[in-house]
């Protein structure tokens, strides 16, 4: 036990003092600050993000349409007639000129825009729909407005959320936490790999394995990475809460947007937190052990990339599957993915956070992850024992298999 503590404490101190860890920690905090504060800052700096438009139409059409177009445009002026060109736009300080024509009961628009890609046909169509309907049908504006605002209420069933707002809030939180989970696992896995590579390149590996069992060394290293990663997560979540304070309406309310929900940490359900911690630990321990074993096989830093890539690809894939599972947590492919080694920690966490997962599936996923963890520990331990004494070019797959057999 004392060996584990000695290695663990030394590894924790070395990781906390390492430049990559400090940079990642600070960069993470800055990134979260940017994500939370930048949109409101930009909004504050630019008085209006919408386009300025001149509306042209005869017989009062321009004035009538301008009242509807205000929803998506800042109206720079209305004209009964005119030929839009750059000079006209400049004189009104406008980006767009919308020319309206009425023929019989139908309404048509031609848009002249400085930035045509930023101009949405659908927005103009949607804005002018009540006016077009009025002209065609002869209904009153009140009748049309009433028809367009027909009440539609979405009520979730077979869901643990009371409203759509809560569901969206949970999805928002799941997205944020999935991203943090991914970042922490990838970054700390690579730190473990760097540590193993450093011990190989600095030739201290042989000294270490002469004193302590390589399995203890590996365990101490991985547990230290886990502790440091947890600390990193706590700092990041604290930064999220700090910078996000005051933003959004709390998420759990029906009107709260998913983005708002991300910052409403108090609204995270205990089951989500439990799933996050459990599957974060599974993911980090599995990835760290594989990374350490891979690191022990290389003796030159330039070979690290070639061995790290095959390990990183499934994890990147798992992130994308996890993102997709937020929208469809009960889809068959999501169920299969949540029970698939390596991908499981990401997808099962998401499913628990946003859906209703049968208990047997959670238990099965935990069982599978425990088994994968045991298998990874066994394989990584054997590879690490052999790898720490291997020097020369990065081994081929065949050599790795032979090394596993020989260990």
């Amino acid at each position, binding site marked *: 036990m004392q060996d584990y503590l000695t290695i663990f404490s030394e590894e924790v101190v*070395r990781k906390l003092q390492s430049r990559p860890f400090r940079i990642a920690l600070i960069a993470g905090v800055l990134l979260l600050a940017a994500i939370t504060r930048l949109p409101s800052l930009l909004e504050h700096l630019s008085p209006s993000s919408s386009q300025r438009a001149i509306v042209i139409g005869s017989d009062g059409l321009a004035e009538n349409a301008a009242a509807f177009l205000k929803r998506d445009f800042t109206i720079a002026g209305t004209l009964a007639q005119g030929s839009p060109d750059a000079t006209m736009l400049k004189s009104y300080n406008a980006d767009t000129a919308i020319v309206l024509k009425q023929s019989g009961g139908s309404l048509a628009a031609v848009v002249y825009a400085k930035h045509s890609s930023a101009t949405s046909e659908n927005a103009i169509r949607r804005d002018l729909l009540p006016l077009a309907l009025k002209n065609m049908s002869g209904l009153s504006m009140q009748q049309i407005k009433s028809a367009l605002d027909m009440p539609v209420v979405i009520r979730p069933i077979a869901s643990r959320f009371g409203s759509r707002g809560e569901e969206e809030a949970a999805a928002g939180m799941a997205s944020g936490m999935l991203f943090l989970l991914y970042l922490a696992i990838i970054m700390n896995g690579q730190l473990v790999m760097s540590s193993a590579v450093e011990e190989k390149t600095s030739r*201290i590996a042989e*000294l270490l394995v*002469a004193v302590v069992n390589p399995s203890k060394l590996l365990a101490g290293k991985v547990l230290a990475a886990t502790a440091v990663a947890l600390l990193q997560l706590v700092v990041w979540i604290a930064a999220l809460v700090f910078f996000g304070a005051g933003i959004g309406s709390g998420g759990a309310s029906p009107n709260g947007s998913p983005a708002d929900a991300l910052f409403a940490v108090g609204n995270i359900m205990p089951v989500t937190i439990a799933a996050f911690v459990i599957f974060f630990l599974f993911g980090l321990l599995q990835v760290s052990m594989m990374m350490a074993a891979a690191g022990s096989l290389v003796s030159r830093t330039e070979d690290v990339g070639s061995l790290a890539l095959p390990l990183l690809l499934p994890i990147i894939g798992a992130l994308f599957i996890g993102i997709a599972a937020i929208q469809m947590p009960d889809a068959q492919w999501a169920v299969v993915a949540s029970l698939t080694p390596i991908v499981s920690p990401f997808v099962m966490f998401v499913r628990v956070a946003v859906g209703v997962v049968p208990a047997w599936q959670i238990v099965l996923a935990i069982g599978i992850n425990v088994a994968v963890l045991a298998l990874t520990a066994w394989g990584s331990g054997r590879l690490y024992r052999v790898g720490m004494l291997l020097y020369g070019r990065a081994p081929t797959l065949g050599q790795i298999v032979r090394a596993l057999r020989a260990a």
Partner: protein
Amino acid sequence: MLNVAHAYKSYGSKSAVRDVQFSVENGDTFGLLGPNGAGKTTTMRMILGIIVPDGGEITWNGKRIDDEVRRRFGYLPEERGLYPSVKVRKHIRYFGALHGLREPRLTERTDWWIERLELGEYANVACAELSKGNQQKVQMACAAVHGPELIILDEPFSGLDPVNAEKLSQALTELKAGGTTVILSSHQLWQLESLCDVFCIIAHGENRALGTLQSLGASWPTRIVRVTPATAGVCEALLRLPNARRRTHEKATIEVEVLADTDFSSLLRALVQIEEIVGFQVLDPSLGDIYLKAIGAEAR
């Protein structure tokens, strides 16, 4: 006592160690010699439990080498290694802790080795900033900080200047005086000759010679006779002896290799009749002589 009995280790079809066997008494300093690729490092790694032998048995005081036993060993491998960013004192403390030292002994022993190897001014300096010689001393301290029962040193003098080599040599002598059993491997045979009690020469993973310098020399078939002055008459008389071979002839002194069973008293009397002899020495074979003969064809 360390007992290595018929140790065998292969990597695929290549045998690194075929059949190495020797015993080292507690407190002895043992020299493990052999050309590059002879199997010395593999043998040392097997003793330390870093690699598991495919055959044979290795025991320390009758017990197989397990984690508890090897914790009491110390090791300085041929390829040196330190954490570049870790400071000297912290480095030595870490290895002391891994070897099972606890406070207050951990601090006490760390300070003692820092002082003993004159590393005081570098105690709070990162290892990467040290000279090669000082890095070597830090590694020696890491290997010996816990007062090991057995210490294995692979080429401990390589890269050291004469002053630091002497300091290391003194430290080894002190360790030995404290009861530590020492296994030394080095290509600097003159240093081994002065430090070791027993030698084992291996080549191609097999024992070629084993014993004290005296016992190895006793079975040596020739001796060197060194005579001063080397006048024509003296040289002629020496070279007339059966199987005599001139080794060196520098200024007034000649060295001739003669059969070990030569009657040296009679030879001296005969030489005195020829010339006024001022120097007459019969030299046993050196470790270098024994080594070259033991490894045979590989020496060429």
